[in-house]
């Protein structure tokens, strides 16, 4: 009798899960795949084929946008790793117990604040009439206000800002678990700081590094506000293209195609990353706060 009750509760618990994943994740992705294969030839007349994808491949503007998004995302990921690793190490290993919690909390705060507010803050700081520009003018460093927005460097700075905490958090978690005596043994056996770093710290932190890089890459490639607001209308970011196709031009077929491409592209990178380092989604992304 209890076996039947167990079965019933399994079905009851599985139903919301199945509905959620099926209706809100799986079916919609199939939906955009379907639409991306569709081509409007007349009123309510559709043909199916890969025309949309061919159009994409031939249109230099779209191809370039995707490549640009890709290489900037990779660059941002690398920067986030290089800049964020020392911070994580400091918080995990060097800071004292009490300040550790405070520092970590301070790191979390910008995360909780909306993307929008952060982008707005950068605009207030960096635009021609913004804080930095007027400060520099009033200090006599430059004669006229300068526009610091709307270029690649700013976009990259802004993107790194947005994502660096997603790199720091997994790294801190991983490194906090590292036993200090591992480092001490490394030094004791004659290693220099560089050796200990290269051979002990980095390999140990690898799961955290991989998790951080994957998360950061996904977020960067998929972000909208930072590149669009800081880069201006010529920012040429892929998600912006998707938005344009859907909302501005109402060309859902093209928009869906771009969406599928973005999805495939980011999934490919994630899968490659996981494969190369021997991790899985469950061991990296799912180890959340």
């Amino acid at each position: 009798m209890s076996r039947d009750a167990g079965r019933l509760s399994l079905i009851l618990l599985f139903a919301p899960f199945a509905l959620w994943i099926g209706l809100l994740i799986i079916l919609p992705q199939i939906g955009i795949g379907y639409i991306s294969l569709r081509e409007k030839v007349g009123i309510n007349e559709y043909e199916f084929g890969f025309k949309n994808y061919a159009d994409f491949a031939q249109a230099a503007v779209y191809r370039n946008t995707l490549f640009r998004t890709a290489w900037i995302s990779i660059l941002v990921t690398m920067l986030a790793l290089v800049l964020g690793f020392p911070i994580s190490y400091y918080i995990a290993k060097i800071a004292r117990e009490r300040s550790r919690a405070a520092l970590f909390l301070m790191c979390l705060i910008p995360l909780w604040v909306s993307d929008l507010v952060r982008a707005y803050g950068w605009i207030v700081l960096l635009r021609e009439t913004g804080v930095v520009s007027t400060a520099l003018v009033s200090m006599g460093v430059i004669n006229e206000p300068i526009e610091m927005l709307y270029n690649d460097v700013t976009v990259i700075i802004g993107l790194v800002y947005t994502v660096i905490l997603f790199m720091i958090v997994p790294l801190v978690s991983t490194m906090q678990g590292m036993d200090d005596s591992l480092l001490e043994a490394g030094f004791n056996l004659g290693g220099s700081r560089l050796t200990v770093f290269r051979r002990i710290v980095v390999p140990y932190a690898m799961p955290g590094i991989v998790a951080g890089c994957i998360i950061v890459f996904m977020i960067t490639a998929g972000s909208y506000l930072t590149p669009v607001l800081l880069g201006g209308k010529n920012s040429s970011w892929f998600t912006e293209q998707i938005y344009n196709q859907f909302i501005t031009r109402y060309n859902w077929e093209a928009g869906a195609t771009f969406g599928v491409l973005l999805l495939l592209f980011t999934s490919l990178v994630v899968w490659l990353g996981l494969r190369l380092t021997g991790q899985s989604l469950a061991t990296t992304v799912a180890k959340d706060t």
Partner: protein
Amino acid sequence: MQGSNHLLWIYRVYVGLFFLYLVAPLLAAGAFAFNDSTFPSLPWRGFTLDWFISDTEPKLGLLNDEPLLRGMWNSFYIGMIVAALSVAAGTCNAFLFVRKDFPFKSAFYVLMVVPLVIPGVILGISILVLASMIANFADSQFGLFLTWLRPGVPLIVLGQFSFLTTITSLVIAARLQKFDISLEEAALNLGASRLRVLTTVTLPFLFPALFSAFIVAFLVSFENFNTTLMLVGSDAPLTITMYDRMVKVGSTPVLNAVSVVLMVGSGLLALLSVVAQRSPKSD
């Protein structure tokens, strides 16, 4: 080791600069909410609360700005609905994965985490497309006019729900893992029905995680942009309203006032969620 003190200080300076970098835009956004100037920039013209309370143009304060207030209200009630739904679904998922065994369980677990890996924009457009397809089908075949499948609040709720559920599931499952099953057996042994065990023993134990998950879901929903952008109809949440202001109309420091409210609110809620999970009383 010689020179390590030197190195340590350089390190400290780097860390200090980093936190400055973290804080700068937030300060910029927030500080100028209190600047008595129609422009969110230097020079500083004196402290004022006008951007919050004033009701005369051109300095329309936040509390008198109709569209912004409506945006806040929309964000608030959407956030409440989505948070409640995703905590409920998350609790079911937590029990499903922590307590039950079934074939392909690890594959389904990966599926559960997948929504976090899909870019928000894609989540938005995919739900938009599916909803439209269904709505068009219903319209052409049955003559049914299903407005809730068109861009608007229901779709926003569904879009945010799709990935928030993953977050709540993970948070609640983490807590459920730590639950000592012999507590449930003891309750059964003392005569409690299964439902009673759930409500008097298991759920009270889970409560800090449920509370924390609710707050996290609410926060993420409140500040969500990418997914919402694709699904928004006529009732816009605060983030969309603010974005429109920034891009189209041109901004006054009222947006800074909004930023302050957002920052303070998020900060408090975040603190609350962290404290709730750490509370020793409900261990």
